[in-house]
C-alpha cells in the first residue's frame, strides 16, 4: 500500500513548476478546510458538519471552487468524486479508501490546475490509500489520549477528562493542515516523499499494531464486566468471538442470539422463583422494554 508510485499524478506537481499550482494562501485555506473535514474535529457540529458535511466531495469541491474562482468546475469535480464514493461506507476502523485525501489533494489540485474531472479521478484512488495509511497512524497513536483521560478520571477531575478528549484533535490539526497545505502547494510528489522517509518496518509495525491494539481496549472493558470469581463469564466473550469469526453472524444477529442465551440462563438460574414470584410481570415488562430499544 505504501509503495504506490504516483506516476500518473506527478504531472500536476510539474505543472506547479510551470506556474499552474496554487498560491500559498490558497493552499493554507484548503489545508484548513481539509482539517475541518477530518472525522475527529469538533467544529461545525462535530462529525455531522465536518466528516458528514464539509468533507463530502460534493460540498468540499464546491467550496474550493469558490476559493479558486471557478464554482462550476468545483461542483463538477465534486459530483464526480462523490459518485466514486457512492455506497462506500466508512465504518469505525476499516475504511476502504479515504475520501479526505482524494478530495483535499486530488480534487483541489484538479480544480486549481484546471485538470477537471479526469485528473481528479486519476488522483483519487492512490491518494485515498495514502489517506488510509495516515488514518491508521492516527488511530494508533491517539491511543495516548485515553490514558491521559484515565489519569484524570483517577483524580476525579472531569474537566481534565474533557480536556484529554479535546486535546486528541491537536495532533490531527497539526499533521493534516501541514500535509494538505504542503501537498497542495508543492504537488503530490511531496506526500510520496514523506512516506519514503519512514523505513518500511516502522510503517509495517504501525499498520499491524493498529490492527492488534483494540485487544487492549477490549481487555480493559472486560475487567469491568468480569469481576473476581466470575471468570467463567469469559466463556460468553469467547462464544461471541467464535460465532462471528466462524459463521456469517453479524452483530445484530449476534445480539438477538445473545438475548435468547440470556433468557435461557436467567430462566435456569431464577426460573423456579420466577414462576411463583409476583415480580414476573414486572420482569417481562422490563424485558419488553429492552426489545423496544433495539427497534429504534
Amino acid at each position, binding site marked *: 500500500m505504501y509503495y504506490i508510485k504516483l506516476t500518473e499524478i506527478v504531472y500536476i506537481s510539474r505543472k506547479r513548476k510551470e506556474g499552474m499550482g496554487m498560491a500559498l494562501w490558497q493552499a493554507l485555506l484548503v489545508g484548513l478546510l481539509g482539517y475541518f473535514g477530518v*472525522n*475527529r474535529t*469538533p467544529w461545525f*457540529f462535530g462529525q*455531522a458538519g465536518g466528516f*458528514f*458535511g464539509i468533507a463530502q466531495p*460534493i460540498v468540499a469541491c464546491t467550496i474550493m471552487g469558490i476559493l479558486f474562482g471557478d*464554482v462550476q*468546475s468545483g*461542483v463538477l469535480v465534486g*459530483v464526480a468524486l*462523490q*459518485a466514486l464514493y*457512492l*455506497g462506500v461506507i466508512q465504518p*469505525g476502523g476499516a475504511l476502504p479508501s479515504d475520501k479526505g485525501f482524494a478530495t483535499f489533494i486530488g480534487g483541489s489540485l484538479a480544480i486549481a490546475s484546471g485538470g477537471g474531472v479526469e485528473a481528479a479521478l486519476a488522483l483519487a484512488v492512490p491518494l485515498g490509500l495514502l489517506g488510509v495509511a495516515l488514518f491508521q497512524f*492516527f488511530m*494508533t*497513536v*491517539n*491511543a495516548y489520549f*485515553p490514558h491521559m483521560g484515565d489519569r484524570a*478520571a483517577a*483524580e476525579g477531575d*472531569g*474537566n481534565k*477528562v*474533557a480536556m484529554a*478528549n*479535546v486535546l*486528541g*484533535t491537536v495532533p490531527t490539526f497539526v499533521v493534516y493542515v501541514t500535509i494538505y497545505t504542503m501537498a497542495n502547494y508543492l504537488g503530490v510528489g511531496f506526500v510520496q516523499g514523506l512516506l519514503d522517509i519512514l523505513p518500511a518496518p516502522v510503517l*509495517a509495525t504501525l499498520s499491524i499494531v493498529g*490492527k*492488534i491494539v*483494540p485487544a487492549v*481496549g*477490549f*481487555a480493559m*472493558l472486560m*475487567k469491568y*464486566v468480569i469481576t473476581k470469581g466470575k471468570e467463567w463469564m469469559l466463556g*460468553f*466473550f*469467547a462464544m*461471541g*468471538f*467464535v460465532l*462471528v*469469526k*466462524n459463521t456469517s453472524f453479524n*452483530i445484530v444477529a*449476534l*445480539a438477538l442470539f*445473545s438475548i435468547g*442465551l440470556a*433468557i435461557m*440462563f436467567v430462566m435456569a438460574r431464577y426460573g423456579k422463583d420466577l414462576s411463583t414470584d409476583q415480580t414476573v410481570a414486572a420482569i417481562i415488562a*422490563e424485558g419488553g422494554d429492552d426489545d423496544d430499544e433495539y427497534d429504534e
Partner: protein
Amino acid sequence: MTNTTNNKTLPRKEVRRSAWTYVFFHHCAQNYERMMGLAFGHTLAKPLCLLYPDKEEYKKALQRHTQFFNTEPTVGAIIPGIVLGLEEGRAKGEEVTEELIVGTKNALMGPFAGIGDSLIGAVYQTIIASIAIGLSSDGSVLGPLFFLVFYAGVCVALKYGLFMKGYDLGLNAVKMITPRITEIATTALGIIGLVTVGGIAANTVNVPIKYEYVSGELVVSMQEILDKIMPGILPLCLTVGIWYLYSRKNWSAIKALLTLIVLVFLLVLLGIM
C-alpha cells in the same frame, strides 16, 4: 453499594448541554484502543459531577465511562442518553448498580452500530448523495446545499433528539427497577454485553501472520495452520491474554501497549508478521 442519597434531579439545561457536548465532541480522541470511550466520558463529565458530590463516587463514575465504547454515532446517540438517565437514578439512590449501567452500555453499542452503519452510513447517505449528484450534474450549487441540509443537518437533529429521548427512557426504566430486577437484568445484560463485545472484538482485532515455511516445492503457511485449528484463534487468545495480564496480574494498559509495539516490531523484523 452504599448510596450517597441525593435528591437532586438534573436540570434539563444540563442534559441539553450534555447532548450538545456529545454532538460536537463524540469523535475527538477517536483511536483504535478505545474508539469513542474518552468522548463518552467527556459527554457525561459535567452532569456526573452534579449527580455525585461525593468525590469517590464521581471518580468511579468517570472511570467506568472512559472505557471502550464504539457505536454508530448518529443512531447510537441514544446510548449516552440512556446511561445518563440510569446514572441519575443511581445517584438518587435507586437500585441501579454499576454493573447494570456498564452492562446496558455494552449490550447496546454493538446492535446500534450494526443498525446505524447500514441505515445512516449505507442507505441514507447513498440516497441523499444520489439526489445531490442529480441536482448538481449541470454544475448547480443546489446539490451541495441539499446534501448539507438533508444529511449533515438531519444527523445533528437525530443525534440531539435521540440523546434526549434516551435520557427519558433511562429515567423511566429506573422507576420500574427493584433489587430483584436489578440482579436479573445485571446478569442478563452482562451476558448480552459480553457476547456482543466478543463479536465486535472478532471484527476488529486482527493478528496477521505472513510467515511461510518454504522447503523446495513445499510451502506451509503458518496462518493456514492456525486457521485449521480455528479461524481467529490468535486474536482471541491475545485478547484474553491481555485481559489476564491487565486485570489479574496488575499490568498497566500502557505497559501492555508498549510490549505489543516492541513485540510486533521484532516480529516484523524477523519477517513473521
